[in-house]
């Protein structure tokens, strides 16, 4: 079952500070959505509204057609995984999993135990004595094993070392292909995680910059490299994201799809057309004026 998420002109202000401004988007397929934004872009504010942790100032949000805030039925289907503070948690992993199993109807205890093994988490040690990375691994275990129709991982990897993050990504892909659901991954580790996203949403200063399929987004950006004057002429009418120059060789990142004719022209003029990474796009679409 897929619940759809509909967000319409959502705004959130803290005092006079606008954290979210007129945010609208729709998630209606069981996919992995990458929510990208720089520090303070509003990622956590947005996600905490989705998860009913707080209410918006204006605008509307519905999940499966219902307003989620203080709606027990919807909240049951939304898991919000973030870097939780466990300093007072004297329970061990076993007890914690048992507790989650009680209120998540689709929780798969066997799978959770498998993940605990993969992450090599001690079963009987109190969670408050875990390292940050181990606590994050437990959060991720709970998030994956809950199999909630909407699962949100808000920078859930904090403190994990690289091999542990790799286990997380691998298990996420595997479990998503067996049990498709709406998964939202918020991150600024773009280059490390870009291969996980089916769709990308970029949030900048509280507003949505874009929402697009990974593949079509990535084909929109190109780098044009060659002799400076020739490059300048070629990119004249294009949206330019960034320019680098080394001697007479210039490389310009452009945004906007190149058609076959453009490519042919580039080739005839001896220009090199290369792909650019999501990380590059992200950096240059969210920089400037600050």
């Amino acid at each position, binding site marked *: 079952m897929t619940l759809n998420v509909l967000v319409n002109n959502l705004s959130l202000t803290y005092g006079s500070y606008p954290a979210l401004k007129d945010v609208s988007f729709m998630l209606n397929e069981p996919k992995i959505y990458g929510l990208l934004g720089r520090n303070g872009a509003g990622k956590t504010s947005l996600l905490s509204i989705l998860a009913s942790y707080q209410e918006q100032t204006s605008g509307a949000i519905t999940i499966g057609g219902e307003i989620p805030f203080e709606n027990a039925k919807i909240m049951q289907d939304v898991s919000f995984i973030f870097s939780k503070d466990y300093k007072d948690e004297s329970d061990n992993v076993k007890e914690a999993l048992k507790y989650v199993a009680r209120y998540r109807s689709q929780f798969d205890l066997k799978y959770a135990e498998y993940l605990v093994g993969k992450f090599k988490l001690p079963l009987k040690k109190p969670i408050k004595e875990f390292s940050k990375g181990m606590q994050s691994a437990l959060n991720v275990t709970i998030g994956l094993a809950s199999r909630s129709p909407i699962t949100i991982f808000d920078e859930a990897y904090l403190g994990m070392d690289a091999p542990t993050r790799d286990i997380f990504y691998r298990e996420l892909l595997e479990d998503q292909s067996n049990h498709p659901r709406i998964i939202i991954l918020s991150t600024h580790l773009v280059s490390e995680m870009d291969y996980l996203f089916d769709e990308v949403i970029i949030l900048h200063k509280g507003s949505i910059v874009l929402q697009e399929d990974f*593949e079509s987004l990535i084909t929109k950006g190109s780098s044009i490299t060659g002799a400076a004057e020739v490059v300048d002429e070629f990119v004249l009418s294009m949206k330019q994201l960034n320019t680098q120059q080394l001697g007479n060789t210039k490389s310009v990142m452009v945004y906007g799809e190149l058609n076959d004719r453009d490519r042919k022209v580039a080739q005839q003029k001896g220009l090199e057309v290369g792909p650019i990474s999501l990380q590059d796009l992200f950096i240059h679409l969210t920089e400037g004026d600050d």
Partner: protein
Amino acid sequence: MSTLFDHDKPIYLQIREKIEDQIVNDQLKEGEQAPSTNQLVSFYKINHATVSKGINQLVEEGILFKKRGIGMFVADGAKGVLVQNRKDAFVDDYIVGLVREAEKLGITEKEIVQLISKVKRSDSE
């Protein structure tokens, strides 16, 4: 993005070439199960959409075929087709460049043939 890929060719083409290579080298034999999209995504750390694009081309061309619910398999005759394709492309991919470069450097046809024999001899030693 993985460092196993180079920057001047679309990644989905490189994905399909890696699978083609395995078939041509007999690492993947006809009738055997090919790696799943998910395995490729996790291994190469390349986006699902990109991997699927490469795989789907191979399926459309009849190199791989899908068995519902089981996975992807190498079709009968796949190796023959790939070898023929590569033979067809051999002139464009290798010979044209070789001849042009040789002309630039003033290497004669006879010398090219001698060089080829020399390389072959040193390979077989």
